[in-house]
Every structure is written in structure tokens, then in C-alpha cells.
């Protein structure tokens, strides 16, 4: 299926991004992870009507996309499944919060002309922005940091080993299951060229085969890991933070706090 193939290619492209030699990719993963978490926490902490301050928070994604040479178009297309959910979170706010906050296009007390902007509309927009910013910040993190590095950073934060391993293996398992699904679908499609999609009678067998084959492959990968000394923990080369790593997190934390409390 082209759909599976396309998704696998997207996964590969994301890995390409993670392996670039750009300076943002070379930053210490812990600094990038903490910056992302702090940014999301600050964004989430704004009052629902604080749209002006929230607009300033766009500086982080804008900086990261421009300086980090990331494509916003590609990012939005990769997040097309999540974005509608994020954007629809506050869709009902205008119906519940009808207090007029201000009027556009009319002097105060001059009559009814102009656009009435209610608290619901502002809170809806701010919720959408919060969601969008958070997703973009997470995208910046995964586009500049490999999954192994993110897991390494999580271990440095003392996230339980089992949680980190599960995250890592699930990520690896995506590709593996995708590859198996792609092979099965290609074999099916080549022998049923006139069929549009998959016959409903074949679904059960195909899904069963897919799971069995994926399990086999996963078993082999696990064997390969244990044969090379894997005992439940991924060990990575220790990386000492450089001044750039410190500067990155300090600068962004200051910017976030400045906008949050001083602007």
C-alpha cells in the first residue's frame, strides 16, 4: 500500500533530519529536552485571555524553524493527524463564554456597530495556539534529536529504565511492523491487481500473518540485542555539556520567563 510506504519514508526522512550535522542537532539532548519541557509548561501556564503574551511565545518555534533550517510545510504535513485534534480542543468555548471582552471597529459607547469579540473566541484561539506551539516544540525536539539521544536524556533525568526502554523499543517496532505490513501488502497487491483495496475475507489472515511475522522479526532483533550484551538498559557514550548547551537552555528559559512574567 502506498500509504504504508509513504509513512515509512516519512519515518526515514525524520531520521535523516535527526542525523544532520547542524549545530542544533549537536546540542546536548538533555538541554533540548528540558528546553522543550520548560517551553511547553510556560505556554500551558498562560491565562486563557493572555493572547498577546502568547503570541510572543511564537519566538521559539519561529527561531527553531528558521535557524534550525526546518521546513514548516513538512512539519505541518507530518502532523496532519494531530493538528486537527489540537485545533479543535477549544472549538466549543465561544458557545459557553459569551462575555464581550472588546469590540473591533467601533468606538466605546458609540453604538452597536463593530465586531464583538467574546472571551470564548479569545480562549479558543489561545487554546489553539497553546496546542500548536506545544506540537511544534515537540517536533523541533524530535527533528533535531535521535530517539536514542532523547532516551539518554530521559535516563539522565532518572526516568525509570523500563519506561525508557519501552519508548525506545516501541519506536523501533513501528518501523519493523511497517516494513512487514508493506511486504505483505505488496505481495497481496501484486497477486490481486484488479482488486481495489483488500478483500474483507483476506483481512483476518493478513493481519494474523502481519502480527506473527512482526513478532518473529521482533524476536530476532531482541536475540541480536541480548547476544551483544543487552541486559535491559541502553548504554550510551557519556556526553559532557559544552558552554553552548548551557547557553541554549539558559537563554530560552530566560526568554520564556520574561514573556510569562514581565511582558
Amino acid at each position, binding site marked *: 500500500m502506498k500509504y504504508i510506504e509513504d509513512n515509512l519514508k516519512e519515518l526515514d526522512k525524520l*531520521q535523516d533530519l535527526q*542525523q544532520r550535522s547542524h549545530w542544533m542537532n549537536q546540542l546536548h539532548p538533555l538541554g533540548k529536552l528540558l528546553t522543550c519541557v520548560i517551553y511547553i509548561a510556560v505556554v500551558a501556564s498562560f491565562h486563557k485571555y493572555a493572547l498577546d503574551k502568547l503570541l510572543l511565545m511564537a519566538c521559539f518555534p519561529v527561531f527553531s524553524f528558521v535557524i534550525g533550517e526546518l521546513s514548516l510545510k513538512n512539519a505541518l504535513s507530518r502532523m496532519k493527524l494531530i493538528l486537527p485534534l489540537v485545533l479543535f480542543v477549544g472549538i466549543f468555548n465561544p458557545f459557553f463564554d459569551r462575555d464581550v471582552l472588546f469590540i473591533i471597529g467601533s468606538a466605546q459607547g458609540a453604538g452597536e456597530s463593530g465586531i464583538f469579540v467574546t472571551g470564548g473566541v479569545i480562549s479558543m484561539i489561545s487554546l489553539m495556539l497553546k496546542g500548536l506551539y506545544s506540537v511544534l516544540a515537540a517536533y523541533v525536539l524530535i527533528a533535531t534529536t535521535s530517539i536514542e539521544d532523547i532516551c539518554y536524556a530521559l535516563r539522565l533525568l532518572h526516568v525509570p529504565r523500563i519506561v525508557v526502554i519501552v519508548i525506545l523499543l516501541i519506536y523501533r517496532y513501528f518501523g519493523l511492523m511497517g516494513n512487514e505490513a508493506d511486504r505483505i501488502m505488496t505481495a497481496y497487491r501484486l497477486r490481486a491487481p484488479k482488486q481495489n483495496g483488500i478483500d474483507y475475507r483476506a483481512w483476518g489472515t493478513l493481519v494474523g500473518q502481519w502480527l506473527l511475522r512482526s513478532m518473529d522479526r521482533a524476536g530476532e532483533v531482541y*536475540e541480536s540485542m541480548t*547476544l551483544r*550484551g543487552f*541486559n535491559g538498559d541502553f548504554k550510551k557514550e557519556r556526553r559532557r555539556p559544552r558552554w553552548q548547551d548551557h547557553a541554549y537552555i539558559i537563554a530560552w528559559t530566560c526568554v520564556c520567563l520574561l514573556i510569562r512574567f514581565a511582558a
Partner: protein
Amino acid sequence: MHTGIKGELLKIENLHFSYERGQEVLSGIDLSARDGESIGIIGSNGIGKSTLMKLLVGLYLNYEGVLEVAGHPVSKKNLSHIREHVGYVFQDSDSQLFLSTVEEDVAFGPQNYGLSDEEVKRRVDEALKKVHIEPLRKKQNYKLSGGEKKLASIATILSMEPDIIIMDEPSIALDPRNRRNLITVLNDIKTLKLITSHDLDFVYDTCNRVVLLDEGRIIADGRPEEILRDRKLLESHGLELPLGFSRTIIYTE
């Protein structure tokens, strides 16, 4: 990791194994191997070659008989020790390479054994050099060709500096140039190698000893020139003369 053992690295006596009760896959294998040997394990499909290899690294432990690797019996207690000394190269390189880049995968083994960062780096450099893929160090695994994947898989094992290297069908799906390259690389590796393969020409080019398995037993054990030229022996056990030999015979006959 090297034990420094120069003599017998592998000792198998009266080895029996079955996946299901009453259906023996291996029934009474006797085999020993010394440092520096390169042994081709040949036999038709489903006769237990891969099973025997997996037993050597302790992937199955419910065997009967004597099975000693690098001086230690294969048992749950010794698994860590044994796996430090035996490297296993899977038939499907995609199962072997599971991290993002070649370098990360080659470093995986040494890192797991708690070696220092400097030592890990030295081993990665050396392993990549041995299989001539230094330029691929930073390359993403999914971008490698079939031949490159095979060499990278071998590098992941060489970085552990094992005493024994086991390879399951290493020449499968390789084009002639990559196959030739692999033969050169394997011949440069002087540790004990156990290679299972149907590609008898490949076995002839890389091994100095051949073991023929059938019906769970060793049928013949000797020099490649003796076993791989014996058409009657090979054909009676589901194999055929290597192409190189059969061509010679056709021309001479």
C-alpha cells in the same frame, strides 16, 4: 572479548536437542573446534544447522549432552560470559542492525559490556576498518545496500572482539562483487569462524574445514577439498557439487 585461549574453543559431545518432545532435531553431535579454524557447516534445509548455531550462544538451553564454549558449559549461569566470547551474525542483517547509524550499532556491544568511551571508540574504529566500511560510519542503517548491511553486521560483532564468530548464511542475497568482498573480509579474520551456508562455493573459498550435517547427525567432517568434491556424498544428502567443481568436471569429462 578475547579469552586468549589458543586451543580448543568449542567442545560438543553427544549433543541432543528437540523443540518438541520426541522430534529430535540434533541427535548425537560430536564436534570440537580450535582457535583459527574456519568451519563450514553444510546441509540441506531444515536439518538443524541454525539450531546448532543458536545452541552455541545459549538461545536454547534445554539440550542434552556436553556443550562447552570458550571453556564454559552453555548454561543460564554462564550466558553473559559466553556471549562476550561468541559473536553471532544473523542471516537477515535487518535483524542485526536496529539502531539509527552504523556507528551506534557497532558501538552497542562494547558499550553494553561497560567498556570506557575511549575503548569503545577504538573498537568501533578497528571493526569498521577490518570490514572496509569506515566511510559508512555515520550512515543511516536503512540507507545501506545489502552488501554494506552484511559488512556492518559483521562489524557489530568484530567490535566485541569475540573468540568465535558464528555466521548464518552470510552470502545470501549478495551480488558477485559484494560476495567476493565478503570472502576477502572473512579470510582476513583469523578467529574461529563457524559458517552455515548452502553456498558451497562460498564455503570452499572461506573455510578450511567442512562439516556435513544430515538427520541431526554429523555425516562427514574434513577438508573442503575432500568433502566438497565428493559428488556422491553430497547428492546422497540433498546437496550438489559446488558450481566451480561441477564446471571443472563437465569440462574435463
